[in-house]
C-alpha cells in the first residue's frame, strides 16, 4: 500500500550505526494502540457470533432443524417455527432487488457515462440524501402516507383486474392490504438504491477509457458503447453491488417492521400482510422471555450468518473486479 515501512526507524535497530537506539516507549505504545483498535473489529465480530449463539442455544437445541423451519409460530404454546419470517425476508428482499437494481444501475450509468462531471456531483448529493433519511422515517411515511395511498389507488385495482387469472391471480390477487410484502419491498428498494448506485458507479468508473474510445471509434452509439465496452467490464462488480444491496435489504428492520403488516403467514399473495425476521425481533423482543426470547435471538443469529455470507461474497467480488480493472 505505501512504502513507509522502508523508512521505519525501528528497522535499523541492531546495526552498529550511530543512529541505533532503543525505540521510544511512546512510539511502541502508539503502534500497539493502533493494532488493538484494528483487532477490535475482529473481536467484535467473533463476540457477536459467540454471545448471540450462546443466548439462543435453548431454541436451536429444543426446536431442532425441523422445528426451526416449521411455519408454526405461537409463543402461547411454545412453538417457535421461523419459516414464515424467513419466507417474508426472502420475498421482500427479492422484490426490493428487482425494483432497485435496474434503477440503480441506470442511475450509475447516467452518472458515469452521460452527464458531465460537474453535473454528476449534485446528483450524487441528492442520491446520498436518500441514505441519510433514517429508516424509521421511511417506516413512518410508509405506514401513515404511502401504504394507504398505494392500497386504494394501485393494489386494489390490480387485484380486482387479475383475480381469477392463474399465475397473476395467485401473486397479485386479493386479499389486499396497504401494509404488505410488496409495500415493504418498495420501501426497502428505495432504501438500498443509494448503496447499490454508489458501488455500481465505483465499478463502472474503473472501465478503461481506451475501451470506451475504441467502441466510439468503431462508430458505436453511446448505448452500443455501454453494451460492448462498459458492461462486459463491470458485470461482475455490479453483481457484487447487488449482493451488498441484498444484504442490506435482508437486515433492514424498522422500516420493514412498520410496513410489512406483522402477520406470520406464508402466502404467494404479495399484497397480503406478512412478516420478516428483523421485523419480528423488533416487535416481539420487549415482551419475550425464556425460549421465546431465545428464538428471537436465534433468528438474529441466522440473520447475522446470512448477511455475513452475502457480504463476504459481495465484497470478494467487488474487490476482485475493481482490482483487476485498475491493474489493467
Amino acid at each position: 500500500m505505501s512504502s513507509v515501512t522502508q523508512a521505519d526507524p525501528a528497522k535499523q535497530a541492531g546495526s552498529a550505526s550511530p543512529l541505533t537506539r532503543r525505540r521510544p516507549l511512546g512510539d511502541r505504545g502508539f503502534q500497539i494502540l493502533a493494532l488493538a483498535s484494528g483487532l477490535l473489529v475482529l473481536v467484535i465480530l467473533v463476540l457477536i457470533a459467540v454471545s448471540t449463539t450462546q443466548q439462543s442455544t435453548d431454541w436451536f437445541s429444543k426446536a431442532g432443524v425441523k422445528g426451526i423451519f416449521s411455519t408454526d409460530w405461537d409463543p402461547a404454546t411454545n412453538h417457535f417455527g421461523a419459516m414464515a419470517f424467513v419466507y417474508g425476508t426472502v420475498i421482500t428482499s427479492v422484490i426490493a432487488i428487482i425494483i432497485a437494481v435496474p434503477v440503480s444501475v441506470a442511475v450509475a450509468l447516467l452518472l458515469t457515462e452521460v452527464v458531465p462531471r460537474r453535473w454528476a456531483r449534485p446528483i450524487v448529493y441528492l442520491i446520498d440524501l436518500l441514505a441519510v433519511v433514517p429508516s424509521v422515517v421511511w417506516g413512518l411515511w410508509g405506514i401513515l402516507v404511502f401504504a394507504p395511498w398505494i392500497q386504494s389507488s394501485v393494489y386494489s385495482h390490480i387485484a380486482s383486474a387479475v383475480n381469477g387469472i392463474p399465475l397473476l391471480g395467485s401473486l397479485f390477487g386479493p386479499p389486499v392490504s396497504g401494509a404488505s410484502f410488496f409495500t415493504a419491498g418498495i420501501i426497502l428498494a428505495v432504501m438500498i438504491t443509494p448503496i447499490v448506485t454508489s458501488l455500481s458507479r465505483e465499478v463502472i468508473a474503473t472501465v478503461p477509457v481506451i475501451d470506451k474510445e475504441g467502441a466510439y471509434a468503431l462508430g458505436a452509439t453511446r448505448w452500443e458503447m455501454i453494451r460492448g465496452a462498459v458492461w462486459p467490464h463491470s458485470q461482475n462488480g455490479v453483481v457484487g453491488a447487488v449482493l451488498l444491496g441484498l444484504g442490506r435489504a435482508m437486515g433492514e428492520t424498522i422500516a420493514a417492521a412498520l410496513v410489512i403488516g406483522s402477520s406470520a403467514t406464508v402466502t404467494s399473495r404479495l399484497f397480503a400482510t406478512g412478516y420478516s425476521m428483523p421485523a419480528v425481533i423488533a416487535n416481539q423482543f420487549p415482551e419475550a422471555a425464556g425460549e421465546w426470547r431465545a428464538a428471537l435471538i436465534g433468528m438474529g443469529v441466522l440473520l447475522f450468518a446470512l448477511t455475513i455470507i452475502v457480504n463476504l461474497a459481495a465484497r470478494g467480488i467487488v474487490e476482485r473486479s475493481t482490482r483487476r480493472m485498475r491493474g489493467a
Partner: protein
Amino acid sequence: MMAVATEQPAADLREPAGWRRTKNRVATVLMWVAFVCTLVPLGFVLVTVIAKGASAISWQFLTKGPIPPNVLPVTIGGMGPAVVGTLEITGFAALIAIPLGVLGAVYINEYGGNRALARLIGFMADVMTGVPSIVMGLFIFTIWVLHFGYSGLAGSFALGCLMLPVVIRSSYEMLRLVPDSLREASYAVGATKARVTVTVVLPAAIGGIVSGALLAIARAAGETAPLLFTILVVESTNTNLFSGPNTALATQIFINAQQPFTGAQQRAWGAALTLIAIAFILMLAARIVTARFTRYTR
C-alpha cells in the same frame, strides 16, 4: 440486443442508422427516468415530514418533557427527553467509535503495509458495515444489558459498533491519499513513526477524516433497531447516560407511528422532522469540512 455489441462493425462513416439512434435515445431517456424514480420518494418523504412535522414543532416540543401518554394532543408536554437522549447517546457513541476507528485505520494504512493481518482487518471492517443494526442491538443486549441492565451507555455501545467500521473505512481512504513524500521528509529529520503519524499524517488527512466521521454520526443518530433492546424507554429526561433506561427520537418515532391517536402521530412527525434536521445539519457540516479542509483528493 446483444447482437449489436458483437456485430462486426462496418467501415461506414455515415450517421448511425435510424433504429440504432432511436435505441440510444430510448436508453438515455430511461436512465433519466430511473433518476427521477429515485427522486420521487425522496421528495415525497421530505415534503410530508416538513409539512406534518412543522406544525408539531415548537420550542416547547423540542425542550420540554415529559413525553405525554399517546392519547393526549401534541400541545401537551414535549419531546425534550428524546432530544436529550439522542444527543447524549449518539455523542458518546461518537466519542468511543471515532478515536478507535481512526486508530484502526492508522494501523491498516501506516503499520499494516502489505501484511495479511492488516488486509484481513480492512476486509472484515467492510463486512462489518453490512451487519444489520438489529443484530448489533441483540449483541449489546446479550453481552451488556443482561449483566448491567438498560442504560444510555448500552445504546452508545450499539451505535458505536455500527459507526466503527464506517469510520475505519472513510479514515483509511483519507490516509491513503497522504503522499509518502510527507512521511519520508519527517523521517529524514529524525521523527519517530508515532510522531510522524500524529503530527504530520493525521493533520494532512484531517478534513476527510472529520467529514467521514460526521457522516457516520448522521447515520447513527437515525438508528432505531439497536436502541430498542439497549435503552428501553422512559417518558422523562434521563441525563445520566450510565444508568437507568433512556429514550431517543428514533425509538419515539417507532413507538408513536404504531398508535392510532392523532396526538401520537403528530409527535412522531415532529420527532421525524427533528431527526432529519439533525442528520442534514451533520451532512451539511461534512460537506463544508470536505470543501474547506480537504488537502488531498482522489
